[in-house]
């Protein structure tokens, strides 16, 4: 067994993957942990993202989303644990960097330089570079190529940065809240562009955002972080299938909790609503099961409605 396999179990078909036809893996981490001084930014993070997915990275502020993306991009080094990106540990080599597109939340661009300057810089700094696509895209969006980007609006700057990151033709695109600065139409167009890119093959995307509705439209994979830990990771369809909302009378639910993992419980004197991760069929006829939406699932794991439930959920991250 390789060291990676010791941590992750046998490599090959991922969870929800299919034996016999192992899916190529874009990103795999095992026990990934990052401390900044005494602060734990990411704790024991074990995830797998197969190639060709658009993975939504969701979590409350400070959950470790940016830390995870920076670890994947090789901008930060793990305190412990492993990262494999495109088959290798992130490292400082042109070949590795050429395959990664990372756009930080702050949208870093040289404010005094123009979009055209950035396009030309990219041509000097990258082996594959499609500068023409940036010019076309920005011209289409009526964003001037010859104005210093510091004088563009926030949304226009984001468009420039996104066009540049796509021009690099990366195999893995890591986007930290890329659409936050965009208006709804621009957001829709950009996410459509990502979907097209993935459709064309050879591209995997991980994007963090708070806009669940947007993510739901394009992503087929979910990484959910809360309190520096992975709460959920997997194909969205599988995750939705594993969870149910149970509505029943207000009574002792100990037996039910023994069978399934209760993510969130809302109790009134007359009624109990549980969001559970199923572990087999629900046998208690007193409870009515219904499917969950992605938003309900995400909110439940964020613990927005009942923060205390998070405390007994710490083992969820071990599920893979």
């Amino acid at each position, binding site marked *: 067994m390789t060291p990676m396999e010791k941590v992750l179990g046998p490599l090959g078909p991922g969870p929800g993957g299919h034996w016999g036809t192992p899916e190529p893996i874009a990103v795999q981490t095992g026990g990934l942990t990052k401390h900044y001084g005494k602060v734990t930014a990411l704790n024991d993070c074990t995830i797998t993202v197969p190639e060709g997915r658009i993975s939504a990275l969701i979590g409350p502020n400070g959950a470790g989303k940016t830390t995870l993306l*920076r670890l994947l*991009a090789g*901008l*930060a*080094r793990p305190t412990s644990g492993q990262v494999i990106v495109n088959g290798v540990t992130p490292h*400082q*080599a*042109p*070949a590795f*960097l*050429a395959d*990664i*597109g*990372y756009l*930080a939340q*702050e949208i*870093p*661009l*040289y*404010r005094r*330089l123009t979009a055209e*300057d950035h396009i*030309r*810089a*990219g041509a*000097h*700094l*990258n*082996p594959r570079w499609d500068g023409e696509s940036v010019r076309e895209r920005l011209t289409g969006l009526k964003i001037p190529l010859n104005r210093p980007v510091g004088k563009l609006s926030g949304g226009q700057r984001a468009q420039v940065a996104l066009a540049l990151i796509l021009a*690099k033709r990366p195999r893995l695109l890591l986007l930290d809240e890329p659409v936050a600065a965009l208006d709804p139409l621009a957001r829709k167009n950009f996410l459509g562009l990502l979907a097209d890119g993935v459709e064309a093959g050879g591209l995997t995307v991980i994007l963090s955002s708070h806009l669940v509705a947007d993510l739901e439209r394009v992503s087929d994979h979910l990484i959910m972080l809360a309190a520096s830990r992975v709460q959920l990771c997997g194909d969205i369809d599988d995750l939705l299938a594993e969870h149910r909302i149970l509505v029943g009378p207000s009574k002792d639910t100990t037996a039910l909790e023994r069978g399934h993992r209760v993510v969130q419980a809302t109790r009134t004197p007359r009624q109990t609503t549980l969001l559970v991760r199923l572990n087999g069929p629900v046998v208690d006829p007193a409870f009515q099961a219904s499917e969950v939406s992605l938003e309900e699932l995400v909110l439940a794991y964020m613990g927005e409605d009942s923060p205390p439930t998070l405390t007994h959920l710490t083992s969820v991250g071990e599920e893979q």
Partner: protein
Amino acid sequence: MTWLVWRQHRIQFYVGAALLAAFAIIIATTGVQVAHQYRSAQLACALHEGCRHLGGLFMGSHVVGFMVIATLGAPVLVGLFWGAPLVAAEAEAGTTQFAWMQSVTRKHWLVVKMGWMLVAAAIWGGVISVLVTWWSSPNNAEQLNQFNPGRFDIMDLVPVAYSLFAMALGIAAGALLRRVLPAMAVTLAGFIGVRVLVTLWLRPHYLSAVTVFYKVTSGFTPPGAFWQIAQGVIGPNGQALAQPNGTPYVDGVPITALPGSCAAVANGPSNPSGSCLQALSHYRAYLTYQPADRFWTFQGIETGIFLALAFALIAVTAVVLLGRDA
């Protein structure tokens, strides 16, 4: 990478080049005048056989003379305005995250950026030094104070080393602090601190100084533009005398320690009497100095020290930037 460095820093380059050009024009035009003034003074004094007094001649205008002395501060400018912001401004604006996510390693990024900046610093220091050294050559020929910090520190090799040191200090401070203004403050304080420390405490000891003892009545002057470190008089009992302070003295010996016959010598131009000479013969003077011909050795050692410091700072920058999370 060079393209990006040029595109990012070309305005700084234009400003630097314009300053150098302006300085060169002023130095060149006034330097020709200085040289002319010197030649005519030499011709005039040769006619009157009074060339010994040429040393007191001040050549050139006071304004330009002040500018030349002010080039003492020129090296730190590159550290402040080019070095300190090099990494710190990018860290503040977050643009390191743009550069480091192109297909270029951080090491490559640092080598190219720092390499061009160091080349620019060496050119800056070198051009200023050449201009100042040329402008000052008539004064140098006469004034015999080549070890004076106002001359030693602005001529020949050392300005290049100072500029490289200032640049490396600015870059290192910026890389460590990641903020432009604090990095500039550290660069300024660090540059002045190290320069003062080296000038006052290290430079006199690059080579062990020569001490010569001589009779107070005979006097002694080493050849050329030597650097006097210490001077004094030793009494008959072997004790060094306190420097005469206000009290009249003869050949460095206070008259209070001498017979009355010496008083006349201290008060006016007259030759010491026999008894006075007899008393003075018990005193010895000493002079501790660095000989004039050590000038280039001292320039070389000082250059070496600042190049070594610059190298150490570059190493620190590399370790900090490549070892730390981006």
